[in-house]
């Protein structure tokens, strides 16, 4: 292997010596020159693109805003009949012409208007988007092979709430793609725009959701006005995916579906600690008559400090003055500062006067009392 290497190197030196030196020099210079020209060419192209984008941005900002303000916002402020406010489509088309950059910048500007103003103005902004046929370009992006283009198109269609059979057909195909983020965007679109049956939607979730995804679904669902809210406790059982269980438990708490409480208790026996802690936290937001007794029972069963602390916090949210002796016992009897603090905080939540009447046993308890009293210290 080594001898082969030396033999090859020797051959190269031989070729180098035999080759006309001037030719070699000319070749090197030509390659370098070509490389330099290529670099300058790409710099020129990039600068040209950037300049076009900058110019498009300038044109849209300078010309579009006054038109929208004059033709949409001012009449809206002056309470002109919404049916008489017409989209200035032709004027806007004359500004955008056939430029892709101007079109993209225009869509961004419409989104910006949408973010500044609420109410009826947004419906007019959406109408401009539709009247100008801009959804056709977004739909085209949906059919691209590039995932990035699919996502951008989906976001735009979702933002302007555009729906059609063609889009639904395409997103059904895209749902089979491996890219998680794409499937996530499709789900946001489905929830936000198609307003499908929530039962079907939750049944369709089979993958582990990220915290972000879960939060987004929670916000979309709770901010929408679905005519039929399903009983979310049907998905709170051990066979379901843990993130789906958490989403459904959170939704149960939001819609105050007290029957979820039993399902959560069942699940607490089998789930892992992180899930258990989150479920206990959710439990603290669902009040039932026997909740406090169940929580007290649970306190003796749960082994971990974090678990016990979550039970105490839940008791603080759902408990009554009848539960104060239990919490006071825990506060004095526990040797763990974290548990003491959780018990005391719950006493404070239930009855501030009872909290002030507590006599500390020793320095540590006094510190914890001072800690709870201090509003600047976040619990």
């Amino acid at each position, binding site marked *: 292997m080594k001898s082969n290497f030396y033999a090859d190197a020797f051959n190269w030196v031989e070729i180098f010596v035999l080759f006309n030196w001037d030719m070699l020099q000319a070749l090197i210079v030509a390659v370098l020159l070509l490389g330099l020209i290529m670099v300058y060419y790409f710099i020129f192209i990039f600068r040209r693109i950037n300049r076009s984008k900058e110019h498009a941005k300038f044109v849209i*900002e*300078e010309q579009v*805003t*006054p038109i*929208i*303000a004059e033709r949409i*916002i*001012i009449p*809206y*402020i002056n309470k002109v009949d919404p049916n008489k406010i017409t989209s200035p489509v032709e004027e806007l088309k004359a500004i955008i012409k056939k430029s892709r950059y101007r079109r993209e910048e225009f869509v961004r*500007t419409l989104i*910006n*208007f*949408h*973010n*500044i*103003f*609420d*109410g009826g*103005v*947004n419906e007019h902004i959406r109408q401009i988007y539709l009247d100008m046929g801009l959804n056709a370009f977004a739909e085209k992006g949906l059919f691209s092979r590039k995932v990035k283009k699919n996502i951008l198109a989906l976001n735009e269609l979702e933002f302007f709430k555009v729906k059609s059979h063609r889009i639904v057909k395409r997103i059904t195909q895209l749902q089979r793609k491996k890219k998680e983020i794409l499937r996530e965007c499709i789900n946001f679109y489905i929830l936000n725009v198609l307003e499908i049956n929530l039962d079907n939607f939750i049944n369709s979730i089979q993958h582990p959701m990220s915290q972000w995804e879960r939060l987004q679904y929670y916000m979309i669902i709770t901010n929408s006005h679905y005519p039929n809210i399903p009983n979310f406790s049907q998905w709170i059982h051990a066979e379901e995916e843990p993130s789906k269980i958490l989403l459904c438990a959170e939704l149960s708490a939001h819609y105050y579906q007290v029957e979820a409480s039993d399902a959560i208790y069942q699940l607490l026996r089998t789930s892992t600690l992180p899930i258990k802690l989150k479920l206990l936290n959710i439990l603290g937001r669902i009040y039932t008559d026997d909740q406090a007794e169940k929580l007290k029972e649970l306190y003796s069963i749960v082994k971990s400090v974090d678990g016990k602390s979550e039970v105490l916090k839940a008791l603080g949210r759902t408990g009554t003055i009848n539960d104060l002796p239990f919490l006071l016992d825990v506060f004095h009897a526990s040797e763990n500062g974290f548990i003491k603090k959780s018990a005391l905080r719950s006493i404070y939540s239930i009855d501030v006067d009872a909290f002030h009447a507590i006599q500390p046993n020793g320095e540590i308890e006094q510190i914890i009392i001072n800690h709870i009293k201090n509003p600047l210290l976040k619990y």
Partner: protein
Amino acid sequence: MKNILLVEDNKVTVTMLSFLLKKEGYGVDVTTDGEEALKNLKENTYDLLILDLGLPSLRGEELLSMMTNNQNLKDQVLKTMVITSNIGEETMEQAFDMNADDYLVKPFSPVEFVARVKRLLK
């Protein structure tokens, strides 16, 4: 004519709001960052400062806090309206603690925006 200083980093928002304010007959100076706003405040007096909290370089909260602590700066502005995308109650409380006269959360109705400005400048 009443003068307004509009401090907002989003160019589209600035153009739109200043258009609406000019249409109502107000004189409007516009800046897109806090440092520049501070410079404007040192040089001119305004009847109303419309301040977005999420600014680059010098944040809106910092500018408000400087105005609270500096009497000369405070005297340059009669009224202050804070606009923000932050829906948190803490931010609102903080803004009012720092002597903001009004607080508006984006997105807002243009009717409400103009009405609030008019009320402040009455």
